């Protein structure tokens, strides 16, 4: 079902807000993860891990799903379609991939936050986990910026399905 112009603009605005909010929340998470890895003051480090868990569950996870759902609505309710243009398809694959990696990271984030609430300082053997959180947040941010660039540049290119649909619309109806 195609959306009308007003509804389409409302859906686009919602999608942009959710997507850009997702990027901003991951950027804030990256700052906290870097403080957790390199900070000298143990109370600041502990506070960073607790804030990371709060940010993850109150902002990052909801915004990732909101960006995905509003993106699906936006593509299915407009002539862009979901699998007609390579840039839309690429955005979908990257967003799903980012959301899966994010959900896989939540156990480590929760562990560090729980440890920060009980222990005075993070154990030295957890340096691998702390580095991993920084690396995954940085990687996630790069992927999200790529998704944002795809949305604005909209590089040309129809999929085989998109090309067939376009051709069906351009050809005169068969007798």
């Amino acid at each position, binding site marked *: 079902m195609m959306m009308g112009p007003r509804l389409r603009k409302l859906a686009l605005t919602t999608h942009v807000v959710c997507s850009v909010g997702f990027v901003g929340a991951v950027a804030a998470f990256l700052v906290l993860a870097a403080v957790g890895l390199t900070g000298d003051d143990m109370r600041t480090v502990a506070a960073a891990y607790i804030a990371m868990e709060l940010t993850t569950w109150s902002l990052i996870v909801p915004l990732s799903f909101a960006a995905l759902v509003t993106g699906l609505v936006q593509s299915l309710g407009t002539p862009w379609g979901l699998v007609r243009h*390579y840039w839309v398809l*690429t955005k979908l694959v990257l967003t799903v991939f980012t959301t899966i990696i994010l959900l*896989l*990271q*939540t*156990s*480590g984030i*929760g*562990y560090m936050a*729980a*440890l920060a609430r*009980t*222990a*005075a300082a993070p*154990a030295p*053997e*957890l340096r*691998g*986990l702390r580095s*991993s959180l920084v690396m995954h947040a940085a990687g996630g941010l790069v992927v999200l910026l790529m998704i944002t660039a795809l949305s604005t540049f909209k*590089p*040309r*290119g129809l*999929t*085989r399905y998109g*090309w*067939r649909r*376009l*051709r069906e619309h*351009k*050809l005169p109806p068969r007798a």
Partner: protein
Amino acid sequence: MSDKYPGAPRWAKLTGVIALAMLVLLIVLLVAGIGGPHGPGRHLPGARDTGAAAPREVPAPSK
């Protein structure tokens, strides 16, 4: 309009090749065991080399 599908654009092919190469590299690393198992629990204490999920209980703080 031509009857023949013009094919995927260069940027889409390049993106696909890079994604495929990264996937193959990841599979090779996992199969060869280079760098140890990769998973959300690989860095957690108690997970050792199993790549298991995070433990529910947090160890008691050291005094």
